[in-house]
């Protein structure tokens, strides 16, 4: 960062002490489609709306939920292309850790490194902050965990969280429904109900994406058919 003509940062302080570019980045996140995550006692579920710009788009080609390692998955709200850059960097960081320590990277470490990248882009020359918030879910030796990373580079561990358009309603809903001893199956149902709250139109296996990780420590994205099964259970 900082090569070419721009050695000065485009993200500068306002008189009130705020970094306006980061505020605007958070607004970009707030305009993005809703995503949420719930940590259960025996796993984590992350889910997102997959509203396509037109019925002509082949929805099978779009994967908003991605794996970073076999036991860590991520979903975003905000600008899709920005999330792709972060996913690529995170995967590489996970591999570098694996090569150095000969063991899979713990989720908290990967979150820290990804957040450090996002912070770099708020303090370097010629670049702008990322327009995404990430929800990273994983299961490692410290059990199931869910982290949220914001464009500023700050990260938090959550029991349940939502990002994107319908945040306040979704979080209120989650606060009411969440319990510490919730199991993964309940969490998946709760996640679907939360998405349904703010959903415009008919919810189906083709316009939402769900990713889960359980005690087997393998992150997987549910197929549209599996999502339909869960939707039927919720009805």
């Amino acid at each position: 960062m900082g090569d070419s003509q721009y050695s000065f940062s485009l993200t500068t302080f306002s008189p009130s002490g705020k970094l306006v570019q980061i505020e605007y980045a958070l607004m970009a996140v707030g305009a993005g489609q809703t995503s949420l995550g719930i940590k259960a006692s025996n796993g984590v579920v992350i889910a997102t709306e997959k509203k396509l710009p037109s019925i002509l788009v082949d929805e099978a080609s779009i994967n908003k939920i991605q794996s970073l390692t076999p036991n860590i998955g991520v979903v975003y709200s905000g600008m899709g292309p920005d999330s792709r850059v972060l996913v690529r960097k995170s995967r590489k960081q996970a591999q570098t850790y694996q090569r150095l320590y000969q063991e899979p990277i713990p989720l908290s470490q990967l979150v820290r490194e990804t957040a450090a990248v996002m912070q770099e882009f708020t303090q370097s020359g010629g670049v702008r902050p990322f327009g995404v918030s990430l929800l990273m879910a994983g299961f490692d030796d410290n059990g199931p965990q869910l982290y949220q990373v914001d464009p500023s580079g700050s990260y938090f561990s959550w029991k349940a969280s939502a990002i994107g358009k319908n945040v306040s309603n979704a979080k209120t809903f989650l606060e009411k429904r969440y319990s510490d001893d919730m199991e993964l199956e309940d969490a998946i149902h709760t996640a679907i109900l939360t998405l349904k709250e703010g959903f415009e139109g008919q919810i189906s296996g083709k316009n939402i994406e769900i990713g889960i990780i359980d005690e087997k420590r393998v992150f997987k994205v549910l197929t549209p058919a599996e999502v339909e099964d869960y939707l039927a259970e919720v009805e």
Partner: protein
Amino acid sequence: MTKSNVMEVPPKGGFTFDLCRRNTMLQQQGAKLPKFRKTGTTIVGLIFKDGVILGADTRATEGEIVCDKNCEKIHYLAPNISCCGAGTAADTENVTDMVSSQLVLHRYATGRESRVVTALTMLKSHLFRYQGQVSAALVLGGVDVTGPHLHAVYPHGSTDTLPFATMGSGSLAAMSVFESRYKENLTKEEGMEIVSAAICAGIFNDLGSGSNVDLCIITKEGKEYLRNYQQPNPRSYSRSKGYDFKIGHTAVLSTKITQLRQHVQVLEGDAMEEE
């Protein structure tokens, strides 16, 4: 910050060849290069009816000494690809580790199972870039969507695609077994028998190879890694009583006792004041 007309290019890492000329010059003048741990080695691979079988011995040498009697020469590259390595142990281990890591990232980017030719291209590009300084001779084998593949990779970056291959100091011994017994469409049992015979030929006829036989069978169903499939060199005698060396066995030439207590002074003092 001073501005200079010459663009400062940050070092990109990797091998710098600057000292190679000096090293050859020193060697010509009689200086000895430090010894590195080589794997001596007999490594083989062959294609059979359902896939690929890789085999390796387990002796690692450091000059004339056996430094590891049971090392692992069959390296993991991907769930469907393995690689035997001969040459300098550090080079084979690190280059296969690196390519294995690159293949993980490649699988995430493409969403597909890795292909053997991908591993082959990554390995040969790396070895060619280092102009033979990375002393890794590999037998690469695996099964992917296009079928079973077997390749031999040389330290300078050239490759061969073969139905059966051998590398390492025991390669001639092993190749004699292959040349006389290989045929197409072998069954798994026949293939395993020929591969272990080839490795045994290396173990018994080459000083750089020895100890046990490791096998790895790869088919489209999966990978079977048979560590120490054969152990034709067991330790035949070990003293049941163990070894004890009575005092007086070793001659004492000189004795010097240094009292450490002289250098340590214990002072009684007041406790530190807390503020």
